[in-house]
């Protein structure tokens, strides 16, 4: 086990993938000489060469489209989109090509492309640098979408994403890049918990709290705070956003009878809606109260002085937990 930052854990996972498979190739803006604006690819170009770690011109659609061509040729491209808000120029290539080519070629052409996206807020950035666009992609068939919450998963899941023959969007919670954790670099990604499995990260009996990416830490903090008040929260780190591992969430809700889902992305049409609907369908008669969503608002990502109002924090999550438990909360007395 080694102590390392989240960013370093991804870097180490990328390094292993580059070592293990000569077909793995990294592409993106500023990822080579600079090592990425967050230094996630630091040192990789120096060690693997400019043909394996490629600084590209500034054109996101081209980064994605050439990755498609490289995949046609048998490569496994790992593409970095520098910031969440910069992914939209590549949206067409992702949705119409990356996601669909396996289907559109009757399985003849595989698209083992990993798309790394630093996402989410909380770092005081200007506009377009703090977004949570994951629901656009979870709604697109043909893609797998994952988000990691801790250095060990970051290290293992990036390797699993690269090993997958399907295209994977890998969302990295940028405000956690500098968090440190124990990482066992000896874990074999092929035998580790599969990337499409959720994980119970804190056991509890009163309410199920579902989170992913940057909010898993917040959710765990909320569970610890609630424990002081005698409330037992079970926290689930979703890890995979498409497909969602409903079996794990369902088992928990059957036990607790209450569900709270939290994410930074806006509420309407978001992943919380999907989780709430699916769990309601699957175990309606085990639910004691209506599922609760604690999310970002349906607004463009706000200016940084106000972002903490937009981002679900510990107190807002606990307010949602109170609502799920039928305890007094900020909306007490309000219908619907």
């Amino acid at each position, binding site marked *: 086990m080694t102590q390392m930052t989240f960013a370093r854990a991804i870097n180490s996972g990328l390094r292993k993938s580059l070592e293990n498979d000569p077909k793995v190739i990294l592409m993106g803006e500023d990822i080579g000489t600079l090592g990425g604006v967050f230094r996630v690819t630091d040192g990789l170009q120096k060690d693997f060469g400019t043909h394996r770690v490629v600084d590209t011109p500034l054109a996101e*659609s081209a980064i994605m*489209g050439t990755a498609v*061509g490289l995949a046609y*040729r048998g490569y496994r491209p790992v593409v970095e989109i520098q910031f969440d808000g910069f992914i939209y120029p590549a949206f067409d290539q992702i949705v*119409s*090509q990356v996601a669909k080519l396996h289907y559109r070629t009757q399985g*003849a052409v595989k698209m083992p492309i990993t798309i790394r996206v630093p996402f989410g807020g909380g770092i005081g950035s200007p506009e377009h640098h703090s977004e949570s666009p994951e629901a656009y992609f979870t709604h697109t068939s043909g893609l797998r979408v994952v988000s990691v919450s801790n250095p060990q998963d970051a290290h293992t899941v990036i390797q699993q994403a690269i090993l997958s023959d399907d295209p994977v969007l890998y969302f990295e919670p940028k405000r956690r890049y500098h968090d440190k954790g124990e990482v066992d670099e000896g874990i074999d990604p092929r035998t580790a918990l599969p990337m499409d499995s959720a994980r119970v990260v804190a056991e509890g009996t009163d309410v199920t709290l579902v989170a992913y990416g940057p909010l898993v830490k917040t959710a765990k903090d909320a569970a610890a705070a609630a424990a002081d008040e005698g409330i037992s929260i079970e926290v689930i780190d979703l890890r995979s956003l498409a*497909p969602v591992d409903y079996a794990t969430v369902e088992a928990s809700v059957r036990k607790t009878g209450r569900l709270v889902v939290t994410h930074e992305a806006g509420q309407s049409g978001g992943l919380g809606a999907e989780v709430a609907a699916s769990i309601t369908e699957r175990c309606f008669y085990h639910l004691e109260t209506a599922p609760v969503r604690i999310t970002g608002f349906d607004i463009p990502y706000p200016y940084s002085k106000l972002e903490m109002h937009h981002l679900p924090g510990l107190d807002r999550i606990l307010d949602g937990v109170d609502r799920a438990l039928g305890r007094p909360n900020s909306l007490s007395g309000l219908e619907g």
Partner: protein
Amino acid sequence: MSTDRNLIQLITPAGERISHPEFDPWMKDIGDEQLCSLYEDLTVIRRIDVEATALQRQGELGLWPPLLGQEAAQVGSGRALREDDFVFSSYRENGVAYCRGVDLTDITRVWRGTASSGWDPYSVNMATPQIIIGAQTLHATGYAMGIQNDGADSVAVTYFGDGATSEGDVNEAMVFAASFQAPVVFFCSNNHWAISEPVRLQSHIQIADRATGFGIPSLRVDGNDVLAVMAATRVALDRARHGGGPTFIEAVTYRMGPHTTADDPTRYRDANELEDWAAKDPILRVKALLERKGLLTDQVKQHVHDKAESVAREIRSGCIGMPDPEPMDIFKHVYSEPNSWLDRQQDHYARYLASFGDPAGATSEEGAR
């Protein structure tokens, strides 16, 4: 367009073989036999196009994008390629597909709607048609970057139209191709029309000149002249194979038919323009050349006719004889690996179909229950 001094031409519309000091050397191996063979290709491809259009009119195909008038651009380039070159085309390059050896039935498959794909791209080194305008130029560029990494000397060739040159993807593809000096050939069939929009709406300068700004050498060629197209493509391929990077070819041709069988070009284009271009027909000029050379014997005529008719019969019977897909096929190949969301939907739909009891009910129309 044939008055344009920059336009590369080796056969005039009247069928006269004119010499060109720069491009003649690339045509040294094209003797009488090869010329007859190109004439056959051109004729067969036009026949395929006519048959497929008829199949659409008879309700056997949902849609067809005719290539009438563009045969030379497709044969000249398609026959210049090596087997290990890889083609990324738009939806109109069915003539190129023929040259690559795509099975005739497979050409119509996707237009009949019996499958999401006509063929296995790796079996003929040609991707299946791209409908998103210009998207494939990036795929070709990426593929070419892969060729470069592999140290191979094959070339990626991408086909697109004049309208596509306005798309961001095509421009970005040229940026990447130039930056990495990727072995890719950009083959633009300037057929003058993007559905109803004339080429002058796309560009104030000649399409070939757009490449110059990216630092990509370009050739402007008479797209209705099969030899000129072949020579230009050979030059471009040779440059790419020997580390010279990308080339842009503008093949100046004309879409004699509609954009697709769903289009009505009489709403937007002048009949006179059509007449002008009919006089520059790509097949008639080769025929005239063969006649001048005394090569168009009854035997050759008969052979070409028979070949075209047999191909037409094959495409018709193959198309009509294609089995309909099974309902559960819609779930296939979305993912390479099991996916719990889709597996559940598939399972539920299978149960729904099974609820009819009669397996035939599975394919019956909505409301038949």
